[in-house]
């Protein structure tokens, strides 16, 4: 089968460039089913996107085949790669056998966790298992106090005995070390690493201070164990992929995308693979950042809908929103700074059903990509969101993915009909109800994300991408009371496009717990300097010596609270005066987010955070429009709020810039479609982005 399922160019290909020296930047996003490719030609200022089937058995071979589709391999100078190796190793539980070494009498921390449950009334819920077996947990005598004093020295002889035991047993492939209070004094962990490297040569050792120098021992253990767990598999597979790419594109520099949306070298990625958990999804966030800046969107919520689930994120003033509360699965926190991408259990494959109270429900079960929606004709018989979109003709069953995949309209009708019979509704009414409920489920989650970040969703614009995101954007705007929506170029390969926009970026944090009454400025300055050094050193290992921009943040809260606000600290050094400025900034920001502040109250510093960026050139796509027309390519009956309309259908690639198309209408491109409701308009921007707006109310 030809894997070249779709190849889109936007704008249209232009003539070969004269200054080939600049070359092409290629983003590759390896997903479960497809691998996405976006090539940005710096000279021609054009970008080309394509998809190719991933090869689950041999990912390197899959990429090799997908790359060969591209005609200009010799002009590629830079490749940025997003990979799911690390994430899949955890989700599929096929990572390494980890040995966990902890402070004696505290080895059960990974198996105790925090004591809460995922929900409160599900008696049959089963907790995800820890990544480490309890029999592989070892305790060594050592103890640091909460003030950083040594209470018990590291018992080196005991540690060597453990090391020998591990070596003799031979089944442990990698070691994670986590001692109490190592974020204050890392000397025992660092000492242990040296000893273990002597005793168990060839076995990688991750220490918690290197991975996550922050308080809360369970979260730190979980993060460190995750790093160790994926290390062997990443170190085995990633170099093979790079080598295979090198065979086709020998002169390209290959970088790996990290979970914070920054690139790093292959070597550094292998050293700390926990940084790769959101490697792929980070691309969507980086792309959003770029598109927002280029088009002047201040506050953007993103919505990336796929088959099984949707990802959403927030981008404010072109800044990536990071989180340190990520969990790979419930109860498996990985708390390094990552792009705050949330997964919602709502996708095109979400299944509609009627519960025993007679209510129509959508999800959380999904038909996924196999068997997929009924209309895919691959054996699915249950009604899904995609089937409903097909029934309502929001998706044209004759022209799905540019006409390359034929959809079975009858299968969709019969699946939806089964639900309609239970509800006493027509097939179209049922389909509309399914879409309304699915949209509301998504809107609730988007609203929750905004609220958790202290924002009001009404102040945002909504960007929809992924195969199904654009289909729902205009409806979601209405539900969330959002005035502007956007659909970027390459909505189907947006993460890969994001990779072409990525910077080199390092985010690092360290806990320095202090109360405002007893601040230790020397300690703050020392930790700030060490964080800055870490960033500069790591950049130098990536080959960057100049152009480094470093920003420091202080994570603050009122003393006794449990959630911090990260406030930028614009000074070189901590002292009394600068602290007062910081304090005022904190009160102001707290008030903005929560509607009150307590200026006289003592505050608490929890972490210092540092962000280092080496900016990379960004794609600058000029709209070369080719032949445009503001006439619809056709009309067809499409269901909107209130019923069926003979709506005009436009070809996105042929829309002229700056012309408003009024809804009801549908804009189509190969990878997706964008239904526009009555009362809304859509306009193509010079950058190619579609902007949807509500009319001014008269």
């Amino acid at each position, binding site marked *: 089968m030809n894997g070249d399922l779709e190849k889109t160019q936007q704008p249209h290909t232009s003539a070969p460039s004269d200054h080939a020296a600049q070359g092409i930047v290629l983003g590759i996003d390896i997903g479960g089913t497809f691998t996405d490719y976006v090539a940005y030609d710096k000279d021609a200022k054009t970008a080309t996107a394509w998809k190719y089937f991933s090869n689950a058995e041999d990912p390197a071979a899959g990429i090799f085949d997908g790359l060969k589709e591209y005609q200009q391999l010799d002009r590629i100078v830079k490749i940025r790669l997003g990979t799911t190796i690390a994430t899949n190793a955890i989700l599929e539980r096929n990572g390494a056998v980890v040995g966990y070494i902890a402070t004696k009498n505290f080895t059960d921390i990974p198996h105790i966790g925090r004591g809460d449950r995922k929900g409160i*009334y599900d008696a049959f819920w089963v907790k995800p298992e820890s990544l480490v077996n309890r029999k592989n947990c070892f305790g060594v005598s050592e103890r640091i106090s909460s003030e950083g004093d040594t209470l018990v020295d590291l018992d080196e002889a005991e540690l060597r005995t453990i090391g020998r035991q591990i070596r003799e047993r031979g089944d442990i492939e990698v070691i994670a070390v986590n001692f109490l209070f190592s974020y204050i004094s890392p000397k025992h962990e660092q000492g242990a690493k040296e000893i273990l490297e002597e005793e168990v040569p060839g076995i990688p050792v991750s220490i918690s201070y290197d991975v996550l120098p922050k308080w809360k021992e369970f979260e730190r253990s979980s993060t460190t164990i995750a790093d160790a767990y994926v290390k062997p598999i990443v170190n085995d597979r990633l170099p093979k992929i790079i080598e295979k790419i090198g065979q086709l594109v020998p002169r390209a520099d290959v970088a790996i995308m990290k979970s914070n949306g920054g690139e790093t070298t292959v070597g550094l990625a292998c050293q700390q693979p926990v940084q790769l958990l959101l490697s792929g999804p980070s691309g969507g966030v980086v792309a959003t950042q770029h598109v927002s800046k280029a088009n002047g969107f201040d506050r953007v919520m993103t919505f990336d809908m796929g088959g099984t689930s949707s990802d959403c994120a927030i981008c404010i003033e072109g800044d990536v929103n990071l989180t340190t509360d990520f969990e790979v699965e419930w109860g498996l926190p990985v708390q390094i700074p990552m792009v705050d991408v949330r997964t919602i259990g709502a996708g095109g494959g979400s299944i509609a059903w009627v519960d025993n109270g007679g209510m129509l429900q959508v999800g959380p079960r999904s038909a996924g990509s196999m068997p997929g929606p009924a209309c895919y004709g691959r054996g699915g018989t249950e009604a899904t969101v995609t089937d409903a979109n097909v029934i309502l003709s929001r998706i044209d069953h004759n022209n799905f993915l540019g006409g390359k995949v034929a959809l079975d309209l009858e299968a969709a009708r019969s699946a939806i009909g089964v639900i309609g019979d239970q509800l006493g509704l027509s097939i179209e009414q049922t389909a509309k109800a399914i879409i309304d409920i699915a949209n509301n489920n998504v809107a609730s989650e988007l609203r929750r994300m905004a609220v958790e970040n202290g924002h009001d969703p009404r102040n945002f614009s909504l960007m929809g991408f992924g195969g199904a995101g654009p289909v729902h954007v205009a409806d979601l705007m209405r539900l969330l009371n959002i005035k502007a929506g956007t659909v970027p170029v390459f909505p189907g390969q947006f993460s890969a496009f994001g990779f072409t926009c990525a910077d080199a970026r390092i985010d690092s944090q360290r806990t320095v717990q202090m109360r405002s009454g007893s601040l230790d400025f020397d300690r703050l300055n020392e930790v700030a300097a060490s964080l800055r050094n870490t960033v500069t050193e790591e950049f130098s290992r990536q080959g960057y010596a100049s152009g480094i921009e470093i920003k420091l943040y202080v994570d603050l809260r009122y003393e006794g*609270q*449990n959630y911090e606000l990260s406030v930028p600290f614009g000074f070189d050094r901590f002292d009394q005066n600068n602290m007062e400025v910081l304090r005022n900034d904190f009160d102001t920001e707290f008030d903005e987010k929560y509607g009150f502040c307590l200026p006289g109250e003592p505050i608490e510093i929890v972490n210092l955070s540092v962000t280092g960026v080496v900016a990379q050139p960004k794609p600058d796509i000029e709209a070369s429009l080719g032949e445009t027309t503001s006439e619809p390519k056709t009309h067809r009956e499409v269901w909107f709020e209130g019923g069926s309309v003979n709506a005009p259908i436009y070809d996105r690639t042929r829309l002229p810039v700056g012309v408003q198309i009024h809804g009801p209408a549908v804009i189509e491109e190969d990878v997706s479609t964008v239904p526009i409701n009555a009362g809304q308009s859509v306009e193509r921007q010079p950058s190619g982005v579609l902007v949807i707006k509500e009319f001014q109310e008269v």
Partner: protein
Amino acid sequence: MNLVDMNIVDRRLKSIAEEMGIVLMKTSYSTIFNEGRDFTCGVADESCELLASADFQPAQVGGMPLVVSSIIKEIPLSEMDEGDVMIHNDPFRGGMHTPEHTLIKPVFFEGEFFGFSVAIGHIAEVGGMVPGGFPGEATEVYQEGLRVPPVKIQARGKDVEPVWKIMLANHRTPRQNHGDIRALISAVNRGESRILELIKEYGPERYREICTDLKDYAERRMRAEITSIPDGVYSFEDFMEDDGVTDQAYKIAVDVYVSQDKIVADFSRTDNQSLGPINAVLSVAWSATYNAILHLTDPQIPRNSGAFRPIKIVAPPGKLVNADFPAAEVGGNTETHIRICHTVVGALAQAIPERAFAPDGGTHSNFLFGATDERTGNYAVCYDFTGAGWGGRPVADGHNATNCINGNSRMNPVEVFETRFPWRFESLGLIPGSGGDGEYRGGLGVNKVLTCLSDDMEVSFMSDRQKIAPWGIGGGGEGQNGSVLIRRKSTPDFVTACEDSNKTSASKFNRIGFRKGDQISISSPGGGGYGDPQERSSEQRAKDRDEGWV
């Protein structure tokens, strides 16, 4: 009835309750709020029925309608204005126990009353006999902290200063409590504005219709679930081992009548109320029974008052499950709630063993203390708890080290605990073998040993399950009991509070003085086993041994 609108409004109402909870979590001061998540938020309609609640603390959900209706009994609607916020914690006026404070704000849309935005939060330190609440030896509610009858804490959006002054003057941690009450007010404010948006969107009439339909819908779903339970009378009993004041066990007995689509849980055979603080007030009996039934039915049924309609609770006054004023009651919602809940599950397990589960460890091991922290010179008060083993169920072993069935709190990390309080952990580990044997094993309890770093430390405790173990289901074995032991710096052995300080109860006691170097060892119980141990597979047995679970 429009199904789509119903589904959408249901989800919206639930989101509103969740959003209120997020505001609380992000802005509150006590660890029991922001880390322990010991709070619940909800939306009530004009008849004080619950429309939606957020899934934070199961102990509080079922009692919410009763709390709200008791408030408006004393402050009639005619005396409520826009911008008012009422506060209330009195367990004998519909509250659940003294620490739990309910804040409600009436919602007026264009002058018309539409119900309440409700937030309930556990404020750890409310005065009374011991720092941190939970005096294990209290014999009257007066000793358990300040009782606040329904009063306005804000009137037309302005603080009612005298109320704040009286309350904070009676709490040991006024600064923290001030922050927590502010956070609760922000939560009900947020709820109010979101409810108003929803009413505006659908129009007042339509909103009321949909809410009525939603309650009927939840009722239908609950009735459908109950109908699938075979009709009959199912009885079960269990005990609280003592009440902290007398060395006497108290029986909780329930006869559950299932008839078609209705359930009656009759607690008439339960013992009379206790002298010590393990009494449950009526809203606890409601809440615990609902909690049991929500665990045995589809977790997707909306938690509104409609779902509770098919369930009737008979709890005669003067019983341990509906104590008369002025009984001591602070352990009722924390400890006795768990026992009531599992007793109902135990009864229904006879009818639907395939949906039932063995009991958890049955105590939160509530550990309360106050002391001067020499590092800061400040007086620190803390309410700490420890997860227990959960019971085996027909699909899997029980959870290890997990908050019991009426809570969903997170335990304090060692590093946060030692930074904030003058204690040092010597150890923290699971207790192998503490889970009851069975086809599906009970989960493990936890042991922790701490050394005191202050000379004026006062420790109080409120727990249970040190004498009468969590039972098994269908031949499953008992979980191991818990313990609280004390070792003085100068002595070699750990002993109980009875031996150390001549206390009546080893599990419930007030104010035992600790000095530097003294230690406490807290063990939480394991969960009960489910099913015949003979049926446990040899692979599971091998894994149990290999991983050291037994």
